[in-house]
Structure formats: structure tokens, C-alpha cells
């Protein structure tokens, strides 16, 4: 890092870069959430199932996020673990209307938390209980119960209900994530 960059950093002109992994089952709304977080001129209108993964960038007041938007389809889920090392935070998206696959989400989360690249790192995890607009959707409390989130002791985590299509609840989550990353860094 050059002197100028450092200076810009101190003055808050240049934002800190942070890598975030966006994980969750297929059709849970990962790409929609990332799309909503991007500046309105960069948003796309039609969201299609992600193949492999895609890299998206967006900025908040103090951080510059690089998001690895991973595909949630069963056959691509084994790609997730290759990116655990690079990630400094995780966004885990859950379809709160899909009661049947809550066990699958829990299974994937447990596998994730027990992975050697994740297990002993204190990285913040943000959960979005997405699709809260659905009539049969479970509350964020119920989702955290079903996923046994209370067992996560060594990592800061936060769950918020969201509706990615309308953009509700997303800002709250991202603000929490930003705070966490700042506290860990300083």
C-alpha cells in the first residue's frame, strides 16, 4: 500500500475492501438480495438461477463489499468450501416459506460451521430469513430455532427477516454486518 493510499484511508476517502460469501439453498433469494444492495442504476430486472457463482460489488458508508454470490443448487454446493478462506464474513439466506427444506438448510449450515477454514475463525454471519412476505412464512425467531442458531457460540451472528423483492430488512442486516467487520478489524 502506497503512502497516498494510506493517507486516503485515514481520511476516509478510500473505503476498506471486504470479501463476503453469500450462501444458502437454491431459490432462497441470494441473488435478489445482492441485487437490491447494489446501486439502483446497476440493478438487473430479471433474476435467473445462478450457475456456479458470480462476483458482485457494492458500497456502504464505510466499506466496499465484494460479494461471492454462490449458486445454491445441490450440484454446485460443493464449490462453496473453496471460497471459505477468502471470505471475511458470511451472509446466509434462508427461504422462510420452505418448511420442508429447513433441515437441508440446517445441514448445509452445520457443514459450513464445521469446515476447518471456518471453524476457528471469528467471522460474522448474517442470516436473512427471506420471503417474509409469504403467507406461510416462518418468523425469524422460528427460523433461528429450527437452525439451532443459539448453538453458535464463537461467532457473532444476527438474523433478520427480509423481503428481498421489496428490499425490506436488508439495510438493517448490512448495517449490523458493517459494524461487526469494523469492530473485528480495529
Amino acid at each position, binding site marked *: 500500500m502506497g503512502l497516498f493510499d494510506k493517507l486516503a484511508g485515514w481520511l476516509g476517502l478510500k473505503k476498506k475492501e471486504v470479501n463476503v460469501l453469500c450462501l444458502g*439453498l*437454491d*431459490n432462497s433469494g441470494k441473488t435478489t438480495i445482492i441485487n437490491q444492495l447494489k446501486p439502483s442504476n446497476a440493478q438487473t430486472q430479471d433474476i435467473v438461477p445462478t450457475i456456479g457463482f458470480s462476483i458482485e460489488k457494492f458500497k456502504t458508508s464505510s466499506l466496499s463489499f465484494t460479494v461471492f454470490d454462490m449458486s445454491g443448487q*445441490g*450440484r454446485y*454446493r*460443493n464449490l462453496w468450501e473453496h471460497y471459505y478462506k477468502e471470505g471475511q464474513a458470511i451472509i446466509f439466506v434462508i427461504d422462510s416459506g*420452505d*418448511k*420442508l*427444506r*429447513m*433441515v*437441508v438448510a440446517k*445441514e*448445509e449450515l452445520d*457443514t459450513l460451521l464445521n469446515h476447518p477454514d471456518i471453524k476457528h475463525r471469528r467471522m460474522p454471519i448474517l442470516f436473512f430469513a427471506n420471503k417474509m412476505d409469504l403467507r*406461510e412464512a416462518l418468523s425469524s425467531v422460528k427460523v433461528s430455532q429450527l437452525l439451532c442458531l443459539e448453538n453458535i457460540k464463537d461467532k457473532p451472528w444476527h438474523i433478520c427477516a427480509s423481503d428481498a423483492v421489496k428490499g425490506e430488512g436488508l439495510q438493517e442486516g448490512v448495517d449490523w454486518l458493517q459494524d461487526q467487520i469494523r469492530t473485528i478489524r480495529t
Partner: protein
Amino acid sequence: MSAAPAEMKEHAEANAKWLDAHYDPVANLYTFSPCIALADLQGDGESKLVVGDLGTGLCSMKLKVYRGTSLMSENTLLDLPTGLVSFHMDQHEPRTPAIAVASGPFIYVYKNLRPYFKFTLPSLEVNPLEQEVWSQAKEDMIDPMSLKEMLEGIRDKADIPLSVRSLKFLILDPKEMEAFVNLHKQQPIRRQTVITCISTLKKNMADEDAVSCLVIGTESKDVYILDPEAFTILSKMSLPSAPTLMDVTGQFDVEFRITVACRNGNIYVLRRESPKPKYCIELTSHPVGLVRVGKNVVVGCAQETLQGYTQKGKKLWTVYLPAPITAMGLMDHHSRGFQAVLVGLANSEVHLYRDKNLISTIKTPDVITSICFGRYGREEGTLIMTTKGGGLMVKILKRTAVFEDRDMAPGPPLAQSIRLNVPKKTKLYVDQTMRERENAVAMHRAFQMDLSRLRLAVARAYVKALESSLTPVSASLSDPLKMNAVVQGLGPSFKLTLNIQNTAVCRPVMNLAVSFLYDEALYSMRNAFFQIPLLVPGLNYPINTFVECLTDKGISDIIKVFVLREGKSAPLLTAHINMPVSEGLALN
């Protein structure tokens, strides 16, 4: 003590493969495997569970559709469903499948969960005599009692069975008969059969969402193939018995194969362009489940066995099960290319078999009555089971689950099934075989000639031995004697013991002498000739003498012993003693 950890291990093992997604023990769902299907009914990428619910008795038969963990819709069915399939009727977009429910002689077709079409099986031929009798009743020419008598006569004799109306009439009380006749006599008689099983057959494309024909088996021992759009009968095939279970593969316009398990305990294979069964598998007990895995057919039998057959009816293997079978289904995981047979058992277990190997066991809280594996919701590997108590259970195959191909059940070790590397037939072997095949007659003659020569040589040698009394048993009737000789000692001096026995019944033998013949350069004997005392019949006389070996070259020779009668030159008996090498001299 040891059972508990083993059970826990087994439980953990099953947990390592399946996630318990949903279990509702009071779903009030009573059904069996032919009445359960998974289909993307709305074309939204989420598969729904379609169940023909048999209800609890004569009522509450329903067509139920589940989405996720909740019931999405219910349609009342008029009669008990015997089978349910989802199939694509046409090429229209969006590609949503229709549901066909077989019940009684009808097939009810639902599109978008609304009744769309009702197909009725063609009625069967009615007995002309029965027709005649009823037309007489219609014109009031005969009273109900004589109608009953005539119908009973027809029932006992005729080739064509009576219609349902006549059978119902025959079981009525005499006082109800009049009203029954008056109510029904105006309608013409019809004889209907019922559907026993239903399946689908792709019309001319093998795609997942290609248009399919319906294939139905009926109580009248027929199999019909129906056109998916017009519901006309495209093909009709006959079986020797009523079908109960059916599996269909192939395409109607190309080549297809219908495997049917029948009520007579046989399995028949029907093919295109053959109105009669092509192959027949005769089972030892009745089939209760039929699943096709690849090109093989796996049959569950009432005798608690699972048997594998090729599609031509050759038996491959048998597996003995711990309990009777309650449900069978195919586990076909497309994206992993994994196929296995799910067998629900009466001891509340589900066994998973790949070929004859038991690869996984699932314990269930209740006995399961139907089983179905496929895409449910958005999850590809979903196992759906309904229980005897009306429960619904959904399990999801873990992404990380691995099935070992090894058999879990104890049995012969793996090494036993490794094939030995037996060399192929060599050129020499082939040449010899060819030679044997070409010259069989000549070889046989040569063998016979040599055999005859051998027999002749043996006979000559025997006669010679007898003539010169070279045998240790005397052949003459006057002096039946037996002798054997034993050599004792290491050398150079040996002890010879001759055991002589008179084998006659009561006559003693006298005036015998023993003489030895040997090479005098090798051996010396103190007494080479001596008299034998009187031989009492039956007793064994050991006669000892000593031999000294003279040579130190480590060679040995034969000493001949003759038993002689005084005044006769030919010996009675001869014995050859193979002398051992003198070890005493060799040591010096």
C-alpha cells in the same frame, strides 16, 4: 448389552444419509404405492405430491395434493382408486402434467386439478341366454322366482359369466326381488370389468416430459394401451391371468416392454407387435411388488424374498428378508446415476437394495404402506412414505450421503466373490479338442485294442504265477497255505520271520520244508533249508531265521522263499522278500 451400541450405530448410520424433513403421524392419509405420484402440476418448478387417498372405509376417498409440508388441494373421488399416474397428454405450453386416477371401470383425468375427462372401459360381451331371460322378464312373461332359477342355471353352466345385475339379483331376499326386477328390467344388461393397475408409456420420445400413453390392466385379463389425447384404444393384449402389478418401459411407436405380475403367481413380459406374452417367469410364491432397475426386474414375493430376474426371465439372485414386504419402490437418483430398490417391511424398516446387496436400512416409527422416491418441492432426492396409521413421512437424501456397494448383512467375505484368473483355452487345448472331435472313432478303437491287450497280458501273467506257485497263497486244494514274510533289523544281520498258516478247515499239513534262494555273494544264511513241523489248521506259525549281509556297497537284493512238499519239485508257495539296504555296514 451389545445390542444397544449396535443399534445406535445403525441409527447414526441411517442418519448420516437421510434428513428428517417432515413427519406428520396424523396426516390421515391411507394409501399404497400405486396411488402415489410426484409431479410438477403447476409448471412452477416445484413438484407436488399427488395421493389417491383410500380413506377409511366406503367414504372419504380423496385426491389429495401436497405442497411442501401442507395440503394444497382436495378433490373427492367417487370410488376407491386402484392406481394413479401423472402424465403429459399433449404438447401444449406450459408443460403441466395431467393426473389419471383409475377406479372401477373408469379413468378420471384431471388437468390443473380439475376434472377433465372420464374414460370408460369397453363393456364385455353379455351372455345371450341371460339377455333372453331378462327380455322375457321385461315383458312380464316370467315371474321373479323362475327368473332366479333360470339365472342360476346359466350361472352354473355358461362360459360367459353373468353380469353384475344378475349376480346382485341372485343374492336378494325373495320379497325384494319383485321391486328389483321392476326397477332394472327396462335398462339393457351390461357387463363391465374393472381396472387393476395403471401405468404410462412414452408415445414416441424418451424425454422426461414427452407425451405418454396410458397402459391399463383389467380384471378381464387384458392390457390396453390408450391414446393420450383421444383416449382411444391403440392396442389390446391378452394375458393368461388377471394382472396385479405392472411396469412399462420403452416407447409405443418404437419398441416397448410391459412386465406384468399376475394373480396366478407368474410374471409375463409383453412386447410390441405381440398380442400374447413373450416371456414368462414362474414364481414360487405370489408377487407383492415389482420394480424394474435398468434392464432387470426385481420382484418382491409373499414368501419374504426379493428376487432379481433379467428381462428375459432368467433368475439372477434371491435375497431372504426378515419380514413380509409392505411396499416397494424404485430409488432413481438421476443426477448421481444411482438406482436401488426400496423395500418397506412389516417390521417397520425400509431396506435399500442395490442388486442383492443391502446398502442401507431406515427405521420408521410405523409400518409403511406406500413409498415413493423422486423430486419433491425443489429437492431431487426426496423419499416419501405413508404409514399404516395414516402418517406422512418425508426424508431428504443428504448431499454428502455415500452408499457403499458392500453388503451390510453378514455373509461370505468379499474375497469369495473375486473371480480367479483362470487362463483362457490354449491353442494346444483347442487343437486337442479338435483332434478328439474328428478322430473319436479311431481313438476309441485304439483304446479298446490296448485295453484288450492289457487284459490278455494280465491274464497270462496270472496263469503263469499260478502254474509256478509264485503266489504267497497256495492255490492247491490239498494244501491250502498262506504265508507272509517280515524282515527285522538294520543290518548287517537281519531277522526273517515267516508266518505260515494252514487255512484248511480241519486237516493238518505235514512233511513241508522251507528253502531260501539268494545271491551268495551278498547274503549268507545260517540255515537255508529246514523242515516245518506239523501245521494245525488256523494257527499261525512264526518261523525265524537270520540273514547276514556281506556287502558294504549299500546294495540290496531279493531273497526268494519256497515252501516245498517232500518228493515234489514244484513249490507250493513262493514269496519274494525285498531286503533293505544294510545300514549297519554303511555306518562303519
